[in-house]
């Protein structure tokens, strides 16, 4: 009697319907059971991600890790690996093992770069001197600008070479500097029909806003009072940032809906 050919012991993958019926605790157990290949856990991980991942959550809660933190702590792999596995399962990897090119959309030059990286390496890779490289880049960019930038008028592209090692340490341009020299901020003075814009100067060093800076400005207002214009001059920021600080920290006397301008 011939020995029977043994069929490989394939483990059946759980159906999505089954996975969905699991309670949170059961699903958790399935996801973290030891010594299993991660690939076998894909259906459970997919369901776990569907239930629990909250992209964009920024609020740290002690003892309640985010999806990424939880992966690192319990699966001992990186979140990137899990994302890779789940996308692989969704059929995003072609049979040859190469990732299918992503969709290209308007303005998304990163996707274009990724899709054509290999071809570009052939063109730009072997250039040895920085001058030759800069020249090639300039011509390439100029060709794109001339071909697609018609609606914006003539665009001239220039490329500069800078040695990073020689570059001086620059302070973060976004850091607020309250000691910055005060600038002559424009005031519209209440004159009714004066064309205002022509007398204005731009705010080149305005950093925008960040929570820390808002807090600093709010403390400054609470301590010194004064108008928004005075505060903006003293803190070296734009009027918009001063008002953001006031709204963020509820220092709203004199604004619409509150105090003098109340309704």
């Amino acid at each position, binding site marked *: 009697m011939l020995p029977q050919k043994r069929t490989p012991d394939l483990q059946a993958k759980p159906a999505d319907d089954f996975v969905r019926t699991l309670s949170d605790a059961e699903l958790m157990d399935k996801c973290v059971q030891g010594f299993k290949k991660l690939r076998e856990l894909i259906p459970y991980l997919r369901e776990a991600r569907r239930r629990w991942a909250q992209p964009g959550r*920024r609020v740290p809660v002690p003892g309640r890790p985010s999806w990424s933190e939880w992966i690192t702590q319990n699966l001992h792999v990186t979140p990137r690996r899990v994302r890779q596995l789940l996308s692989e399962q969704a059929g995003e990897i072609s049979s040859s093992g190469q990732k299918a090119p992503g969709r290209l959309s308007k303005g998304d030059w990163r996707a274009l770069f990724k899709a054509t990286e290999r071809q570009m390496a052939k063109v730009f890779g072997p250039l040895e001197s920085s001058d030759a490289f800069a020249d090639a880049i300039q011509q390439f960019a100029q060709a794109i600008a001339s071909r697609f930038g018609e609606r914006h008028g003539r665009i001239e592209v220039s490329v500069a070479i800078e040695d990073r090692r020689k570059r001086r340490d620059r302070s973060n341009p976004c850091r607020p500097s309250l000691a910055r020299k005060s600038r002559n901020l424009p005031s519209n003075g209440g004159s009714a029909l004066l064309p205002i814009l022509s007398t204005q100067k731009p705010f080149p060093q305005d950093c925008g806003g960040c929570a820390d800076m808002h807090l600093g400005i709010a403390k400054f207002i609470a301590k010194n009072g004064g108008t928004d214009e005075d505060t903006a001059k003293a803190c070296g920021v734009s009027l918009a940032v001063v008002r953001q600080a006031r709204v963020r920290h509820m220092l709203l006397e004199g604004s619409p809906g509150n105090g003098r301008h109340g309704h």
Partner: protein
Amino acid sequence: MGTSRPAPLPFLRHDDIASCRADFEHYRRTGFPVYSLKRDQRRQELLELLVADHAGIIDKQGRIKQTMHGLALAWHFHPLAWTVRCGNRKTPIELFRDDRLLMQAIERRTKLGNAFSESGLRKILRSFSSTQSVSNFRPTAAAAIYHRLLPREGGVVWDMSAGFGGRLLGALACDRVDKYIGTDPSTYAMDGLLEMANELVPMAEQLGRRTLEVELHKVGSEDFEPERNSLQLCFSSPPYAGWEQYSDERTQSHIKFPTQDKWLRGFIGATLRNCSYGLKRDGVLAINIASVAAYPNLACVFLRYAEDNGWRLVETLHLQLSKMVGLKHIGKSAFKSEPIFVFKKK
């Protein structure tokens, strides 16, 4: 990867009061989630607005679809918009100040199942029960309207109630606008517009947009007389008869003209006369106006008034607004919309 230790749950469940409490405390510490962009973020937002396909967002039925490019940029320069009251509703700031209501808002937002972030909180602060905040005109919608109503060779635009800068950004995004004239009596709005223009016009030029001339005047449209026959398009969204109370300065139209009839004749009437004076013979007037709770037939009254006073309605566009849930089954559109009436001189 042992099973002995129970793994902590990687999520904030909607019924997890502790997490809502943590969110609450976090925002009490960090303050109201005002829009605030750093310079490179503003540049990126502007770039995205400039490359967005605004011309294609008006469909054959004249519906202007929603895209949100550039809105955050406009709000960055107008933080006090959060304090503007609409009718008798609460402002988002008032909601944020009230501990009980803020906690309820956070719980509701968490129950919706979306990620909790500053943006999520802003959304719920805008739409929570008995709360309303002012909206901004979407820059891409404005750009689409400029593109549709201005001739290919371009022209001068007057924005009669420039407000929070959505239409100024739209003018930046549309190459057909040669010059943008904005008027608004509100000091705060004008401050924001000035900063926008000072920063974003040169920035847009660096990004490849041809020069846009901007002229801003802190004055109500009823008192501004443009140069005769100089305008190609007058386009704005006026305050809806005091529904949105931008400030209590005396120059505000709802204070100057306290009754609905006075507002219509005094503010709208004078503005339309100034438009007629400034527009070229083939110039176009486009007005976004809609009925509100305090003035339920405002749109009809305005339309009749304009037609009786020398204007001919040539087209009505529909500005799509936010999506409403649960209307499909009764056969209504899922989107709210507001009309934009397009007139020419008779």
